[in-house]
């Protein structure tokens, strides 16, 4: 049976991808962030998954305002890299895992999560930057197949944090019932605190971010109990992306250990963080 071996929470700020694409990771501005990633990257390179399920949001690229699915899943063989308005990132095409996608879809719908299905999907920085955080030098091909799982975080009403955690729990169950012996990693992306527009643009709330970074491991229920208004007020209008971390957390289950985390301000207009958790339950059954 398939197993979730680890979960990675990471910001997906476009400029983090641009810093890698333009070889600026050693610049004074970016070095502290990338130094913070190093231990997690080294550990992940020793614990490679067959498939990564990447929970992210599209930013006005594959999905426009004509239709905005609350939760969606990609079921394609491959996903092209989107031109977001300034040319696509020069990174490999993203290979899908359509059999796993279809299995997850069936299981989630049976469990009451009525996912929108995407048979064609161009993936934007929300998905490709986290892949680059995992694997900075993919060469011609990413080291794993990908199942994109999309969440509406840009148009109110977004799903509640509680619903995200519940979806994660259903996702974990769906993964574990896939009959092939594959290793799966789950990525929760976005955040941390940031607000791009309005008089509060540039908002960073380190206290809230650090509380969240801790509680995501030990007390995700307390984070699921926060309202959408709480997230926007405390973490900014775009900080609400952090609800996507709860999907990753729900999928991991209860027996996890923290491998590494790092927190840095700023990545352009954003507080950026990474947190990596090993699924201890998977380790003992392997």
């Amino acid at each position, binding site marked *: 049976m398939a197993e979730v071996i680890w979960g990675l929470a990471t910001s997906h700020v476009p400029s983090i991808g641009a810093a890698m694409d333009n070889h600026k990771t050693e610049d004074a501005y970016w070095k502290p962030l990338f130094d913070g990633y190093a231990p997690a990257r080294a550990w992940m390179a020793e614990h490679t998954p067959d498939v990564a399920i990447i929970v992210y949001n599209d*930013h*006005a*690229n594959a999905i*426009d*305002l*004509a239709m*905005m699915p609350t939760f969606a899943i990609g079921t394609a063989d491959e996903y092209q890299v*989107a*031109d*977001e*308005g*300034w*040319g696509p990132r020069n990174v490999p095409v993203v290979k899908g895992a359509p059999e796993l996608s279809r299995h997850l879809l069936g299981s989630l719908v049976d469990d009451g999560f009525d996912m929108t299905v995407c048979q064609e999907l161009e993936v934007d920085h929300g998905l490709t930057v986290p892949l680059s955080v995992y694997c900075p030098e993919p060469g011609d091909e990413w080291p794993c197949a990908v199942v994109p799982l999309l969440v509406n975080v*840009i*148009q*109110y*009403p977004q799903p509640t944090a509680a619903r995200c955690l519940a979806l994660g729990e259903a996702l974990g169950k769906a993964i574990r019932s896939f009959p092939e012996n594959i290793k799966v990693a789950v990525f929760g992306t976005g955040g941390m*605190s940031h*607000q*791009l*527009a*309005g*008089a*509060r*643009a*540039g*908002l*960073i*709330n*380190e206290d809230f971010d650090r509380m969240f970074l801790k509680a995501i491991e030990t007390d995700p229920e307390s984070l699921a109990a926060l*309202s*959408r*208004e709480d997230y*926007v*007020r405390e973490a*900014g*209008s*775009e900080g609400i992306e952090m609800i996507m971390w709860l999907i990753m957390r729900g999928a991991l289950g209860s027996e996890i250990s923290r491998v590494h985390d790092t927190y840095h*301000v*700023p990545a*352009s*207009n954003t*507080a950026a963080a990474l947190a990596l958790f090993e699924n201890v339950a998977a380790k003992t059954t392997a």
Partner: protein
Amino acid sequence: MPAPTTPKVPGTYIFDVADNGRAYALNRMLGSFKDPRNREMFSADEAAYCDAYKLNPEQKEAILQRDWNRMLDLGGSIFYVFKLAVMDKKSMQDLGGIFTGMTTEEFVAALKAGGRHFG
């Protein structure tokens, strides 16, 4: 039971379905800039491009004058508005300065100093 209303947070745009409705043409036009041919067409004749996307006079004026605050006030979503900013070679830090009445340098410095804090 009344329909749930969008929360209000001071100094913050919470883009919602009502904004989507009133600014649909505006955001749809801004979203079209993900296609390089559309970027070229817009640059060749901005006013005609706005008309083709049926922008109302307020929306069109905000675009032609590059009134970034007004685009947001009219219901523009920042992810859509940003595509025009990139065409103008503006960064999210430039916009941050405009939204907060700072220069870009001041805005960048505020972020480097740990970001802006509220209540």
